[in-house]
């Protein structure tokens, strides 16, 4: 999916600049966004997902401009899947309804179609027996797999994941990353904000480094991790290595 933006920036009412004006244009297949905490990664992903409006700049997806009014944003969000760091599932709905209700209400599936699709995905992600459980009764890893199932249920053109594993224990992290890897093999395009550098480097073909509100580096993952150009990225990667085995 072709993603393009020009002069995109974000400033909150408090006056703090979260994203400095930035340009970007590329055909996104699998893109990892990395960078230090508070650098604006979530903010950028939310803008791309049509969840918040940028302060300045324009955004095109597949050469179509995304207008910042509620009704066209609603149309746009239907073509995109979004997975949050945590708490993105509807708490009062069970796993099945979390997937089936949006299909039925937003995408015009009939009740049986929606239910069938929900069960198909739950089964695929190893959650067949848990379809009746509410989020609070699921483990963090199971919740994230349901969240991914919901996000891809309507076959979106692009999946956006905001640190889908950072609230999880290591064993659950792996099971969620495996699911994403599998979706990649099916040809799903995604942008993932992540602190899992192994995944960013090996499972994503492109990577972007966002630091202090600027898009400092962008390119092939192998290139970015192998030969970081900016001092900030070198320092960022160096820090991560400090505690590695």
């Amino acid at each position, binding site marked *: 999916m072709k993603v393009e933006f020009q002069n995109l920036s974000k400033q909150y009412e408090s006056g703090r600049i979260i994203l400095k004006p930035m340009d970007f244009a590329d055909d996104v297949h699998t893109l990892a966004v990395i960078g230090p905490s508070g650098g604006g990664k979530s903010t950028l992903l939310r803008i791309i997902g049509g*969840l918040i409006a940028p302060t300045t700049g324009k955004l095109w997806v597949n050469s179509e401009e995304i207008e910042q009014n509620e009704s066209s944003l609603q149309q746009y969000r239907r073509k995109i899947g979004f997975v*949050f760091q945590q708490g*993105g599932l*509807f708490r*009062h709905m069970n796993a099945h309804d979390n997937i089936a209700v*949006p299909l039925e209400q937003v995408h015009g599936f009939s009740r049986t179609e929606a239910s069938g699709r929900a069960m198909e995905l739950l089964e695929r992600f190893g959650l067949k027996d848990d379809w009746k459980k509410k989020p609070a009764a699921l483990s963090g890893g199971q919740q994230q797999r349901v969240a991914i199932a919901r996000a891809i249920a309507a076959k979106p053109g692009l999946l956006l994941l905001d640190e889908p594993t950072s609230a999880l224990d290591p064993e659950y992290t792996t099971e969620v990353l495996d699911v994403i890897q599998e979706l990649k093999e099916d040809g799903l395009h995604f942008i993932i904000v992540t602190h899992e550098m192994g995944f960013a480097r090996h499972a994503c073909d492109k990577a972007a480094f966002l630091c202090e509100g600027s898009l400092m580096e962008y390119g092939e993952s192998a290139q970015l991790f192998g030969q970081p150009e900016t001092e900030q990225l070198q320092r960022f990667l160096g820090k991560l290595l400090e505690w590695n085995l």
Partner: protein
Amino acid sequence: MKRLKQLFWISEDSRRNAPLTSKKKINRFAALLNLLLVTALWVALFWFSLRAIHVQLDFAFLGQFRIRIWDGFLVTLGLSVCSLILSLIIGILSAAGQSSPLLFIRFFCSVYVKFIRGTPLIMQIYLFFYIVGTAWGVNNRFVAGVLILSIFEGAYIAEIIRGSLLSLDESQLEAARSVGFTRRQTWRFVILPQMIARTLPALTGQFASIIKDSSLLSIIAVIELTQAMREISAVNFRLFECYLFLGILYLCLTLPISLISERLERRFQYES
């Protein structure tokens, strides 16, 4: 010794997450035994107090007043149900009003809520009875009673609803946007179900309060249960019997409600 302790002592983990009415984790026999002891204690307390002032309980006279009592009971029930409905409407409107973008409406609603919650019901009844009854020309005391009670309870319901609106999680609204829900769908499938789960137990409890508070309407001579009993006790001076029986009648209404409220609370605890 340990068996004995089990009869009177609740284990640590059932104490932590169970209200007393969930009998599941408490031994049946122990529950019965303790309930019996409690009842015996209360009865004894009453009995000694009454003996000290030489009162002999005799409920026989109640039979001859049963129609008046029954009528009063029905009026109380009617007052409470009508007030519940009206106060719900007032409560929802003023909760919504308090987050209105229009400053005037916002202040109007919060002044209303603060005034009502900050003053005693009995003062409001006297005050509003003159306003509603005399100035607005509502002569029907039942209607006046419903209006006054609803204005009072509406402020409390407004706070219950406002509290649950405030506790609504931003992340849930963002999730609703992300799946492509319209505003309407967000209300229907996310906000309302979550708010109902959160407010229903408290609203049910509020209904019990309405029933009890309606007794104060006796001061403007609405002949509901309390007023009926007052009139009966005024002719035969059987104060103890009258008020004891009155209490039992109120409990017949409020006890089931508080049980339902507790049950709802437990059920929704795990949901939201």
